[in-house]
């Protein structure tokens, strides 16, 4: 299987604080990956490192099968990136900025730009400095989508958008995902955005991708268990993340549901209640 993005042993530190500690990650074509992480976990650093925007200390990264810092122009044109903070030249008008970016791409779609600009009600004659943060974010998204990329990387894309804008943005991504076989990676700490559109969740914690799995699988396997048993029975729950022993049994959250163990419990006539959890709780449990 050829991976779109392949990371091995990525380390990166700022001054004396290490942010990424031997991180490995593989992303397959067509994936819509949500990257979750606490504030300061290094989500932006990771995404910037993938794109060679910030330097790394060690590790191997390949994108489209090419080394990340020697991408061919052809493959560069296949990437769309929306940074977290806007550092476009503030005195350029939106039109100027669009024209500036356009010259680099042969696949640039003017229709897409016009359509999104009118849909998102952006005054293209205004300067970047005169736009609200939400509008700037929309412009950045338009700039990333216009070259019709195969790999889209968003760094907190919805952070400064209002709920309606966020939903509209998600819709746009969904249309892209269903029309073409594109791969999307987006970092966020808003789990509800992710639950609608992602098919995979990655959790970045303590410098590593500590969890990477399908969203549905995650919801089915990271669950709350209540084991109705007596204290003397001494049952150990497999894959336990966090547990508590009560007088009427055990309570626990597992990272994976062990079917063999479940069958065993049934045999022993120990009742096990399984409660599914929302992604937000799952995230909190996995990074606790």
């Amino acid at each position, binding site marked *: 299987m050829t991976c779109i993005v392949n990371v091995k042993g990525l380390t990166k530190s700022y001054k004396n604080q290490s942010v990424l500690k031997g991180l490995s990650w593989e992303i397959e074509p067509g994936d819509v990956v949500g990257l979750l992480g606490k504030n300061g976990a290094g989500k932006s650093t990771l995404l910037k490192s993938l794109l*060679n*925007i910030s330097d790394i200390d060690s590790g191997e990264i390949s994108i489209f099968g090419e080394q990340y810092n020697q991408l061919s122009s052809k493959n560069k044109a296949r990437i769309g*990136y929306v940074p977290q903070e806007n550092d476009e*030249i*503030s*005195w*350029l008008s939106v039109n100027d900025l669009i024209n*500036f970016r356009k*010259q*680099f791409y042969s696949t640039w779609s003017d229709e897409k730009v016009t359509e999104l600009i009118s849909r998102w009600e952006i005054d293209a004659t205004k300067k970047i400095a005169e736009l609200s943060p939400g509008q700037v974010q929309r412009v950045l998204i338009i700039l990333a989508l216009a070259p019709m990329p195969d790999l889209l990387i968003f760094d907190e894309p919805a952070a400064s958008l209002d709920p309606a804008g966020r939903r509209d943005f998600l819709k746009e991504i969904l249309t892209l995902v269903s029309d073409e076989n594109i791969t999307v990676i987006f970092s966020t700490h808003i789990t509800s955005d992710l639950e609608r559109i992602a098919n995979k969740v990655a959790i970045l914690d303590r410098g590593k991708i500590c969890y990477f799995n399908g969203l549905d699988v995650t919801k089915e396997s990271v669950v709350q268990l209540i084991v109705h048993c007596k204290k003397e029975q001494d049952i150990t729950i497999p894959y336990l993340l966090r547990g508590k022993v009560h007088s009427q049994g055990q309570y626990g959250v597992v990272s994976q549901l062990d079917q063999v163990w479940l069958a065993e419990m049934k045999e022993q006539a120990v009742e096990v209640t399984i409660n599914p959890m929302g992604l937000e709780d799952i995230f909190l449990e996995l990074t606790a």
Partner: protein
Amino acid sequence: MKTILLHGWLVKVFIVLLWGIAIAMRLTMHDDTRDNLLFTLIAFSNFLLYLMVAMRLPLLTHNKMAVLLPDYSQKLKKVLLLVFGVSLLPTLLVLPDVVTWLAFISISILAILIFVAMIYQPIYQIFIWLLILMPLPMAMLDISLNKGILFTTLAWLLPLIIWFAYVLLNKLVNYRGNHKHISKIIATMNVSMGNTLSIQDSIPFANRTKLAQWWGNSHFNYYRKLINDATNSSQKLSNRKLIEISCQSANSFGVNAYVIWSVGITLLCVLALVIDESYHHLFTPMVTLIPALIIGTGSITLFQIIQCKKSYLARLAILPRFKQHNSFSRAFLGYVFYNQAILYCFIAMLLAVTAKIFGHINVTVYLNSVLILLVYCLVTISMMLLTWRAAQNYCNPVVWLMIIGFIGTIVFTTHMATSGMVLLVYNGIFQWILIASLLLLSFSVFRQLTDK
């Protein structure tokens, strides 16, 4: 990319205008002075262009997206070569003197290298000072420069210079280093002309250079002392002092700036008194440049600061101590006049001292210069006040106007100094100009004190 590098119509128009004048001169003038004049004119306009492009360059080389955009560095290189190529067109006017033309290209490339180096590594600013001081050691060591030989050498060196520049250009388009410094430049380039100084106040203290930290600290220490003294004694700060304190920024032209300049000038004077008098003329560019620099920065800084402290001052104005009618406006006027008057007196004194020691200007020229500067001062104060009252934000054009007016004043002053005119006070036109500027000032003061 071109739009980014050449953004801003004012400078562009100015450069094209200079080129136009050069073409006109080439076609109309036929005497010996033509070549020299042409040379200076084209060099000036092209250097202005190169400086502008060099200042904008970090925006492109240190653009975060640069690594992601396909063929970015090649495109950037092409655009830079194109701009350079276009800038060479007016130099064709120097022809048919091929040696001068080739030397001119060499000089242009060297100038570009220095400009770019200066922007990317501030340490290279030393080149400019070396160039200004160049005549001194040369005169001391008795090296006489023959223009012809110099130009021939430069012309012959051209291939070497081109090769060197091309190597550096290839490095430059991929350069990503010195991030801290460049981000400051980008921050400055990213705001409009009206806010260039105030943006520097937003740089975190720890990120400033040691010199800037010391400078800011010593500057603010004076005002801290003022506030402490006022709290410790029963005497309250006057309204004017209060406004003065609130209008300080790390870049204010304050007490330490005066001290530093005075010390610098004194050292220069001492040096001049020690060395032989025949070298004095070599100091002339420097002693004319320094007062010009001080008055330029002193007035523009004040303007930018009061502009960006506007909302803060508005909050100050509702303090109980300003409840009396017009008391805030009067105190504010007091501050502006006081600040500019000190600046003006300092310059007048400085000019007097340097004129006495270096003898580069006589009494008439001195008085004339002082008068012209007075007019400049009156006009800038009126502009400051009018802009301050205006409902709309005219900050950018006004700063440009001030810079252009400033350059105009300098050019006029030097022209007058060399042409040996009579005392300007007796000149009818000047009297009218003086009266007009006084009227303008009184009008702006009047506006300041009325309405609201």
